[in-house]
């Protein structure tokens, strides 16, 4: 009970530090700017984007109803989960430990009668809270605003063919897709957190995380025999698992494996970061 109270206090102190820092809101600010901009622009374009995407198909198929709707636009925005959202998340997660080293405040917090492990756990929980909040914010803003601007309807997915999901089936798919996206972003945050434990400047973890993401993605998509074995172990193989929610039938096996795989990567990153952090000599 006492441990829990103390832990709550530590997490609260980390949350205070995080949410009173301006850079924490940078990601939220960018999303708040970009999402409405894209959605308003799409509304003004009046479906030209969808028309271009379906150009070859309209000769052979007849489409009924409002396919250019809020769900369609919200789905397009989810594609930012490939690169842009990881960048913004690593911006904060990478600062969690390295930021203390840069500011010299390790000397302030690590001389207290609280174990490094507890401080580490508090920092990681804070990182998870931020990551989940950020993905939740993206979800609510992109879906909510898109539906307000463009209404609802069936969801058309144009990805190696055309799939139309009935409106009744769309909301729960989005919900699970965003939960999977949050799980994926936790892996990205854990990776940034891991790099953050090594260095004494906050830029390094961001660059390293994005570097890993780019290199892993390239290895994952290039059909070269040499990469066949390593690509099985890269988390980027499952970075698209949220997208499987918009397929029919849903590839639950791929999603289940992805959840385990991402979880293993997150755990490995956090345990490695912990091992570095508790043994680290504070020289800054």
């Amino acid at each position, binding site marked *: 009970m006492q441990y829990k109270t*103390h832990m709550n*206090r*530590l997490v*609260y*102190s980390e949350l*205070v*530090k995080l949410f*009173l*820092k*301006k850079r924490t809101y940078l990601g939220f600010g960018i999303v708040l700017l970009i999402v409405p901009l894209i959605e308003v622009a799409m509304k003004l374009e009046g479906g030209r984007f969808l028309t271009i995407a379906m150009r070859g198909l309209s000769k052979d198929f007849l489409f009924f109803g409002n396919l250019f709707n809020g769900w369609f636009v919200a789905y397009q925005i989810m594609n930012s989960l490939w690169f842009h959202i990881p960048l913004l998340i690593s911006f904060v997660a990478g600062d969690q430990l390295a930021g203390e080293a840069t*500011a*010299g*405040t*390790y*000397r*302030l*917090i*690590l*001389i*207290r*009668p*609280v*174990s490094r492990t507890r*401080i580490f756990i508090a920092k990681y929980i804070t990182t998870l809270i931020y990551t989940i909040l950020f993905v939740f914010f993206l979800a609510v803003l992109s879906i909510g605003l898109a539906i307000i601007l463009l209404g609802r309807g069936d969801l058309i997915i144009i990805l190696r063919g055309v799939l139309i999901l009935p409106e009744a089936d769309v909301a729960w798919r989005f919900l699970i897709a965003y939960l999977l996206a949050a799980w994926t972003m936790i892996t990205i945050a854990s990776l940034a957190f891991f790099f953050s434990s090594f260095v004494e400047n906050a830029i390094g973890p961001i660059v390293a995380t994005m570097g890993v993401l780019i290199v892993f993605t390239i290895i994952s998509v290039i059909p070269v025999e040499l990469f066949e074995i390593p690509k099985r172990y890269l988390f980027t193989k499952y970075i698209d698992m949220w997208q499987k929610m918009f397929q029919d039938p849903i590839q639950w096996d791929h999603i289940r494996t992805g959840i385990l795989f991402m979880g293993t990567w997150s755990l490995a990153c956090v345990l490695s970061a912990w091992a570095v952090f508790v*043994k680290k*000599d*504070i*020289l800054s």
Partner: protein
Amino acid sequence: MTETILQTRQLGKRYGKRWAVKNLNLEVCRGDVFGFLGPNGAGKSTTIRMILSLIKPTEGETEIFGHRLKTYRSEALRRVGGIVEKPDFYQYLSAYKNLEIIGMLSNGVNHKRISEVLDLVGLSDRAGDRVKTYSHGMKQRLGIAQALVSDPELVILDEPTNGLDPQGMKEVRDLIIHLSRDRKKTIILSSHLLNEIEMVANRMAIIHKGELAVQGDVNALLNEGDKCVILQAEPRQKVLSILKRRKKILKGITEKEGKFEVIMDFAFIPELNRSLVGAGVQVKALIPRRSLENLFLSMTENAV
């Protein structure tokens, strides 16, 4: 009987092949203002970082309030507050918020206590301002406040007067004396200035090139051994002949860079001065210097 509250045994830290601190045995007793003296780069901050568990020793151990730091870290540090090198804070937060966060790491500190320490260091009226707007002196005072916020019994201050103007230095010294005398705190004060230690400490240790040079009671250390007077006077021949005639009060004379180093009891300084002036010697300087001062100055001169 005086209780030992901090003890280091054979404490050492090695970086590569270089020992930053080696075989260090310190003993701090309850109620001490313990001066930890050494030239820059001597290993003071490394030692303090080891005592506060910021860095892990390569060898040896530290015991605080009877708890081994290595195995009972939290218990050992529960009654300790400290400031390590320059005071850094969350610049975007106010002084009050910084202390509140630090308090949370020390089992919680209430509003009254935060206000009390801010008042103690004279920052009450700026408590709500962001730390980034503070001057160096204010940050230094806030550093002392954060060391005191959990009301520790042992306060470790690593060069707390660094970068302060003479008035600021005096204020910090007065605060240390107040904490020791009126609040019964035990204080470890590191410095590279002997006179600073002399003014506030009752016990001291000198560290040089990572090793303990001397440790003990400040007055005893300052008074033991030969005392030396640096004499700068002209003309040289006349000075020499007078000095040779006063052999009874002088234990030794050496000439170095145009100055005479005379080993003698300080009580005879007025008599020596009278003899020199009476003989028409132009006395430019007569500087008493104790053996400890000489030892420390020789270390400082050789320091990196």
